[in-house]
């Protein structure tokens, strides 16, 4: 096992070695942007479920999508007792990951990060940054791009709704779309606008783009489901519901339902409940000594999680969240690894 590197600032006076924590000593912290959207709410719920399964509670932190507030909370958490601290964190943006990692490292806390991280920053360079989990945005962007192309019969104009422009997720997904466009030469990207992952903004932008491009719009590619749902409303209001194919990413419940009803063509699964649990589970396993950092394969220190393209054909499988407790057993925590982060 690793020896903790807590002698610098945090961790108290004893140099606790990794894996020495009693299960009851472990402190679990889950941090996401807010509790006011289904995806992140399910994340925290997943974390709670895992904590309950091991007889602990999760400290739920939310930071309103505010980078500085996230850092403030992290430094405050790290200023407390960090010996057996496990954090499962969704950094607000790429730039927020570095200070979180460095802070946790200095304090000797176990850390799992998800979604955002600068490419150069690698968990293997750190002792207690156990893993970074994300979904392959390029792949998902491409998958739904292909599904869209297929839905409109391989040719026609589409419009793209981008996410918050300076996030990796938005960029990767859009890169995926471009790759898809290269492949599907019949599909033409008429316009692209940022709608900031927001349902309301997507609604307004889509309406404008619909009047701008009129009947040329055969499909709408959205970088997440919220925007896709906003686009659906716009289509309905423009009286074109059902005539334009819509795709999104994230598999939020409403989108899955929409796919089932056929109003949406496709989305890509990302499992908030699992994400909320798995980060804590990895940390918990290492902290209690059931898993050793050295034993975690290098490709599992930063990995893409499995994701599935959800279309009408397989939507039935995704109507219920399919996280189950066995996913979080220390032997299974890397079950959903789809491949190392490139």
């Amino acid at each position, binding site marked *: 096992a690793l020896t903790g590197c807590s002698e610098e600032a*945090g961790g108290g006076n004893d140099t606790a070695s990794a894996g020495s924590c009693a299960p009851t000593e472990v402190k679990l912290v889950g941090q996401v942007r*807010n*509790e006011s959207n289904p995806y992140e709410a399910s994340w925290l719920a997943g974390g709670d479920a895992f904590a309950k399964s091991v007889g602990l509670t999760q*400290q*739920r*932190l*939310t930071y*309103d*999508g*505010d*980078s*500085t*507030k996230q*850092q*403030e*909370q992290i*430094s*405050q*958490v*790290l*200023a*407390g*007792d960090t010996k057996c601290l496990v954090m499962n964190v969704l950094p607000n*943006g*790429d*730039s*927020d990951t*570095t*200070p979180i990692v*460095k802070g946790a490292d200095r304090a000797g806390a176990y850390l799992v990060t998800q979604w955002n991280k*600068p490419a*150069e920053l690698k968990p293997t360079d750190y002792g207690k940054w156990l893993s970074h989990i994300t979904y392959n945005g390029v792949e998902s962007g491409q998958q739904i791009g292909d599904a869209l192309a297929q839905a409109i019969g391989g040719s026609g104009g589409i419009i793209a709704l981008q996410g*918050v*422009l*300076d996030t*990796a997720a938005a*960029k990767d997904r859009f890169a995926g779309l471009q790759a898809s466009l290269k492949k599907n030469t019949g599909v033409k990207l008429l316009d692209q606008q940022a709608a900031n992952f927001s349902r309301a903004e997507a609604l307004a932008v889509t309406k404008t783009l619909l009047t701008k491009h009129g009947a040329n719009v055969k499909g709408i590619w959205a970088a997440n489901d919220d925007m896709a749902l906003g686009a659906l409303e716009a289509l309905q209001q423009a009286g074109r519901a059902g005539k334009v194919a819509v795709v999104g990413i994230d598999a939020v419940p409403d989108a899955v339902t929409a796919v089932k009803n056929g109003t949406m063509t496709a989305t890509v699964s990302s499992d908030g409940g699992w994400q909320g649990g798995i980060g804590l589970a990895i940390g918990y396993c290492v902290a209690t000594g059931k898993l050793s950092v050295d034993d975690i394969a290098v490709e599992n220190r930063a990995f893409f999680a499995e994701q599935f393209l959800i279309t009408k054909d397989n939507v039935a499988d995704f109507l219920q969240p399919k996280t189950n407790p066995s996913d979080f057993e220390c032997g299974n925590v890397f079950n959903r690894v789809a491949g190392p982060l490139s």
Partner: protein
Amino acid sequence: MSTPVTTKPAAGPATVKGGPGPARRLTSYMPLIALAVLLAALTIADPEFLTQRSLTAASRTAAPLIVLAAGATLVVLCGGIDLSIAALASVSTVFLALWLPDLGGLATPAVVLAAAAIGAVQGVAHVLLRIPSFIVTLGGMSILSAVALVVSGAGTVRVVDDSTIAWLDLYVGGYVPMSLAVAIIVVAVISVVLKLTPLHSWISATGYSESAARLAGTPVDLVKIGAFCVSGACAGLAAVMLVSRQFSGSPTMADNLLLPAVAAIVVGGTAITGGHGSVWRSLAGALVVTLLRVGLPIVGVPSAYEQILYGAIIVAAVALTLDRSKVLIIK
């Protein structure tokens, strides 16, 4: 017959020195009292909150907000408002991250100067075009955000070699974060300069009554431009602190600090209508706001209730700190 008439010449120089009464002195300490009460409440909610490490972390966290609020306080004292500070700080983090490799140690002063210049440009626009500072800086906010997005290529700019700004992450005497020390120095310098020079008179006169100040020959326009300039420079300095903490620059990094900064100013008891207030008050206000931002979730208040509490407490804090003898009409 007639009433007694004593020769009573108009009163000579009155010798009564109208010093502040105990009540008045109390109002000027209100921001500190609010701070202490909040800290006590958080400690009661979670005894672990009142540890030296926890306080050190909170004060380090508060530093950029203090600097940001201190600069904007000057604009508020002049009767205006600067809504661009956060966006300006964001774009400054991008500039700093981009310039660090080439300029090294000079990048910090360069960024502060650039931010000061941008602030001054907004001040000039406000003064020359005669449009409300609210609108100028709201426009400035969106323009600066766009610039930040374009310049950064809509992404994080990583700082590989942060050796020239890493000093901000040190601790003075082992406990006091360097960034907090810098923030306090900034506040101290601003207040000392104001106190010792005619600037204080000019700024308050401008804030209380711009037309009277102008007709008294006060350089109102220059004072305002200067306030915006200092506000910009402070945004630049806050950006340096943020970069030293985040090891990168990002086009939206500080955007969410706008409302907390304005809240810090108001919670400190500075009149949003101008004239009355001080940067010291904003320092206390920034600490209150920071404690609320980090303290509530850390002591375990659930997210939804945290927002409700934040809203209620911040209003209550202002109710405590505002010196109503100076602000007759509350708008």
